């Protein structure tokens, strides 16, 4: 399938060069994951061994994990992050694709205006909106609430833009056939159109989840109550508290990193394809 499964003839003939290139690439890759390796390795070292920089701990121990998770706050932050990222992702997958489908497959006056209006919000950086959002949240009592963390991201112009391009490739005949079968418009979207764009939908879901899992700026602003921190904000305040207990900080960092790495291990093909889809189309 891959047009370049067989490398270009010229390149293949320069064997030593090819091996050198491969070695440099491989070593570069190893360097890339070194911070992650050190993070995991140090999280398994006792306080006395932290300054011993060998990568494989001499006496690996789970004591840091016991200590950090035993704190109780970390478990709570972890839960908060899972909750926030999941709800926002579900909301984006539902609403972004519903908006995109409507704009791609319905003909009605004002369609283009709505699309351009939504698209124009891509130009507005989050940083410009946080002050109004903060004022809104404080007026409605949303500071230090889950809804306060979540509401700005419930729908995204990026998701609409991405999904619209995929819904445009869905043949109208399919939808018309469903209409003749008597499905209502919502059912046509849900049961006929959505299943046809699942690759794009999963790309959107992965991006939204990742973006919200790692989000720092807005959660930092909207929460001051420790019990409502998301994991990145909690970790940041925890690390400041610990100051030089690097093994505990590395354990916290590892806990924040493991879920996304696990997701990657299970969905590697989807994620890489999703990045390509989103990057090329978006």
């Amino acid at each position, binding site marked *: 399938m891959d047009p370049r499964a067989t490398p270009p003839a010229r390149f293949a003939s320069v064997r030593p060069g090819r091996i050198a290139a491969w070695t440099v690439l491989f070593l570069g890759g190893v360097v890339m994951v070194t911070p992650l390796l*050190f993070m995991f390795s140090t999280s398994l070292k006792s306080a006395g061994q932290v300054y011993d920089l060998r990568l494989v701990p001499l006496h690996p121990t789970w004591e840091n994990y016991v200590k950090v998770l035993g704190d109780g706050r970390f478990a709570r932050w972890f839960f908060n992050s899972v909750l926030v990222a999941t709800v926002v992702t579900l909301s984006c997958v539902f609403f972004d694709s519903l908006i995109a489908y409507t704009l791609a497959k319905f003909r009605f006056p004002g369609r283009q205006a709505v699309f351009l209006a939504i698209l124009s919000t891509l130009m507005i950086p989050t940083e410009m909106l946080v002050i109004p959002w903060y004022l809104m949240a404080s007026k409605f009592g949303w500071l230090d609430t889950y809804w306060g963390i979540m509401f700005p991201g419930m729908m995204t112009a990026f998701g609409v833009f991405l999904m619209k391009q995929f819904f445009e490739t869905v043949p109208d005949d399919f939808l018309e056939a469903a209409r003749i079968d008597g499905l209502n418009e919502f059912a046509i979207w849900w049961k006929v159109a959505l299943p046809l764009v699942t690759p794009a939908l999963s790309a959107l879901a992965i991006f939204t989840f990742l973006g919200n899992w790692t989000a720092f700026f807005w959660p930092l602003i909207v929460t001051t109550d420790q019990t409502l921190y998301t994991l990145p904000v909690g970790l940041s305040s925890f690390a400041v508290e610990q100051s030089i207990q690097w093994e505990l900080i590395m354990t916290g960092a590892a806990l924040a990193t493991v879920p996304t790495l696990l997701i990657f291990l299970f969905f590697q093909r989807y994620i890489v394809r999703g990045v390509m889809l989103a990057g090329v189309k978006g």
Partner: protein
Amino acid sequence: MTDATVNETEGRTGLWGRLSMSAKRVVWAWAFLAVPLLFFTVVRFYPTLEAFYLSTTDWDLLNPAKYVGLDNYRRLFADPAFWQVFRNTFAYLILGTPIAIVLSFAIAYYLDRVTVLHGFIRALYFLPYLTTAAAMAWVWRWFYQPPPIGVINSLLAWAGIPAQPFLRSVDQALPAIMVTSIWAHLGFQIIIFLAGLRAIPVSYYEAARVDGLGEGAILTRITIPLLKPTTVFLVVFSSIGFLRIFDQVYNMTSNDPGGPLNSTKPLVLMIYQTAFSSYQMGYAAAQTVVLFTILFTISMAQLWILRSR
């Protein structure tokens, strides 16, 4: 399940029943868009206008906002601290973007030809992209510690190079933070370049080879020109990322945010401090408008460059 829907629709009379098929679809469309339009109005459009309005006020959240015209902008442009922050912000971009683009292109170019362990090597480069910036900032911060704690300084000592101050130096702190941002986004850029490389038809290469072009000539005359849209996208994407840098700086300099001596402070950190440490909402809003203007200019430049291709 379809039968139930049919009965339901046929059984309905009144206004809805009298609508034509296409009129019904218009009603459906607006029904689908009702909640989203409300959302975008309340959470995107209105806050945007409010940010512009707030930038012309003096407001500390306690007393009523006072209209001051363009005073916030005058104050900002007369503030040497702002120009320091402005220089820092562009230093991240001007140092970071070329390094990130050249590195990711070179890696993608060679990785594209690698067949042995291709997926594995690609995964090694991509993994950092999936990490949380706030978490990895602390890992890097630990790396940059003075000896004997810091990993990098320990390596330098092993190689016989004197210890470097990194985050404690006004000269080295900004590049040290920038490196972590390049590291985190390199995998994304490589994947996008790989997609761009794969999209170039093989026939172009074959034709070039028939014409007797060498690898170098193929690279400069075919690959790089055809990758222009990809490259422009990545340059803009990376530039915007650097202009909005915050998580890494905040976490790597948390004992003195933006330090030492404001040498690493980017615009977003200044906005954060003005709004949520000093509660000067109007002044902070003016700073966000400046950020918006810079980002808007860059996005427009991208559209203009891609149009004239």
